[in-house]
């Protein structure tokens, strides 16, 4: 069912995506201008367009969208769902153990089980060391957020990190067509597949934190979230450089990242918020694209809804699917739902 939804979304969006990318390429200058205008419009109405901020230490005012009232704590819980997913994936794959039970309880949402996952037999010393490092960092992120959130912390939701026939990784890989429609994608079968599995959601964490920064009110929480954003960006670049380097001998590692990126893009709406590791050069040939960023050299952000489209592997509005079969946990429903892009 998930798979079908993804396929449908891909078919529908493929033409749109092609058009969009072509547009972005030919209209780079005008999109630049639009970006600048929107930023400036939100800054100040001065005719010279300069950023003027007469208030000495501006206090951010929460401006929740109507109908989506949530607190910083709710936003941290939104992030914690993603950290549970990443921590379990890396911990099981790199260290051979799931997170302890004491790290999974909560007062909000249903405590779910982890489906799938096993230790990867690493061959490459560098990849193994990096995988363990990321695992320990992600475990630390879960603990940090649980402590920061306190008594209203969510329980770990049900997670599907399986690479079998009904696994979310398989669904994502089929959607990206890096495996055939009847093939499975097991991210634990090799360190190569482990890196591709990590790639499927690494940049998503970055865009989720980036998108959430402007929604946070408390400055300490903002600083903490900025630290998490940076950490996820370091991790994402490690995964991307790891795949790109391997792609010298096996080009499919590079092309697969572009295919996965396109699949993610097809799920989260019309904006182009995603890039693989390979960029086509104007005069032919390709070059590295380690940083997914816009033409201003600024990384992308995703709204909570867009993040859920990827996490649920669905282009439609709803709760649940993909890596979170029963949905993410949150007190606030608007922080659990995916966007209607299908």
């Amino acid at each position, binding site marked *: 069912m998930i798979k079908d939804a993804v396929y449908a979304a891909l078919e529908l969006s493929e033409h749109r995506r092609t058009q969009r990318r072509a547009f972005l390429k030919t209209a780079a200058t005008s999109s630049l201008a639009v970006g600048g205008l929107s930023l400036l419009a939100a*800054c100040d109405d*001065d005719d010279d*367009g300069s950023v003027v901020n007469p208030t000495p*230490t501006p206090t951010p005012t929460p401006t929740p969208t109507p109908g989506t009232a949530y607190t910083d704590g709710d936003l941290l819980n939104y992030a914690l769902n993603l950290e549970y997913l990443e921590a379990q994936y890396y911990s099981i794959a790199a260290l051979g153990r799931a997170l302890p039970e004491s790290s999974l309880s909560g007062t909000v949402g249903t405590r779910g089980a982890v489906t799938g996952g096993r230790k990867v037999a690493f061959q490459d010393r560098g990849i193994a060391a*990096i995988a363990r490092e990321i695992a320990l960092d992600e475990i630390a992120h879960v603990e940090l957020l649980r402590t920061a959130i306190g008594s209203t912390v969510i329980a770990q939701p049900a997670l599907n990190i399986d690479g079998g026939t009904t696994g979310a990784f398989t669904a994502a890989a089929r959607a990206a067509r890096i495996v055939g429609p009847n093939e499975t994608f097991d991210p634990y079968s090799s360190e190569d597949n482990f890196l591709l599995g990590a790639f499927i959601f690494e940049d998503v964490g970055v865009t989720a934190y980036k998108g959430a920064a402007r929604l946070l009110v408390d400055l300490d929480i903002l600083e903490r979230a900025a630290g998490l954003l940076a950490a996820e960006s370091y991790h*994402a670049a490690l995964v*991307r450089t790891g795949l790109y380097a391997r792609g010298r001998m096996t080009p499919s590692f590079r092309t697969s990242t572009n295919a996965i990126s396109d699949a993610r893009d097809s799920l989260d709406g019309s904006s182009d918020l995603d890039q693989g590791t390979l960029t086509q050069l104007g005069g032919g040939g390709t070059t590295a694209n380690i940083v*997914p*960023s816009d033409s*201003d050299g600024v990384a992308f952000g995703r709204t909570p809804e867009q993040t859920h489209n990827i996490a649920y592997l669905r282009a439609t509005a709803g709760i649940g699917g993909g890596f979170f079969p029963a949905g993410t946990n949150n007190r606030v429903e608007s922080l659990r739902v995916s966007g209607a892009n299908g």
Partner: protein
Amino acid sequence: MVGEMVQHAVRPAEERSSRREVFRGMLGAGAVAGGLAIAATSSAQTARLSDADVLNFALNLEYLTANLFAFATTGSGIPSDAQSGSTAAGAQGQATGGRRVTFVTQETQEYVAEIAADDLARVRFLRRQLGSSAIAQPAIDLGVTPTSAFSRAAQAAGVVPAGAALDVYADETSFLLGAYIFGDLAVTAYKGAARLIGNKELLDAAAGILAVRAYNASTIRSALFAGTLIKPPAAGELNPITVSEQISDARDLLDGRDTLNETLGRGPDADQGLRTSTTADGEIGNLSPLNSRGLAYSRTPERVLNIAYLSPSAVSSGGFFPAGVNGAVRTSGAAN
């Protein structure tokens, strides 16, 4: 002089290796001290900053790295139309002393070219956002003579002897080490600046730049680390792992040892090299310089300037910015 001070105070390598374990044992204390540390690090200089001041401060760092990467990839600095600005906040200067690097690893060459393009795009982006209040490019020392900023940084870190030069353009690894000096620094600068930006659109953009800077820093660290695995350095060659630790220690000593706050990602040891550690789980990499909570570190603008000026005390120029940075924030932290 700076070199002597830093060399004198460099801590033994053994102290660093047990850092993560030590921090793990201090989590309780760090959490309790949180509230105090915030007040202590919010200086009078940063308390009065407008969003434009913060962005202009960041623009100084973008000018610095954009020129470094432009020289390495093209042999010249950034285009002149990306250098002009409001001289009310400081005179326009030249970026000098850089040159083109001969890369031997195809991937590294591509990574560097990508960072160069992103850096220049960001210079233009910030200038556009700032409009007429954008600062001009300050004078930037990217040279490699024995008295240049790179060489003095290397001397201070103990990478080269006193009075010796470090040519960061000599080869690929040397360039990556030169870039490494600023990679994590920029991450900590943007993270530290996040709370200073009031406008939500600008904060959103700054968060996007923070992320890109972390991707870039990670790419540089990863290329250095991978290089040592592919070809372990021979005797007499620069060992990137060792050098990364030396530079990290030097940065840590210059920036004044911020009060430990684990849950915000601040601390006296806001910097880490590339040396791996080993636990019961096996070898653990240190590609991401994070604290025991998995957080990247923050630096205040003043602490960033301590490193850019290569000075542990309050000065308004030096190091990579021989005439100082431009804009409202110009003075490094005091009595570090």
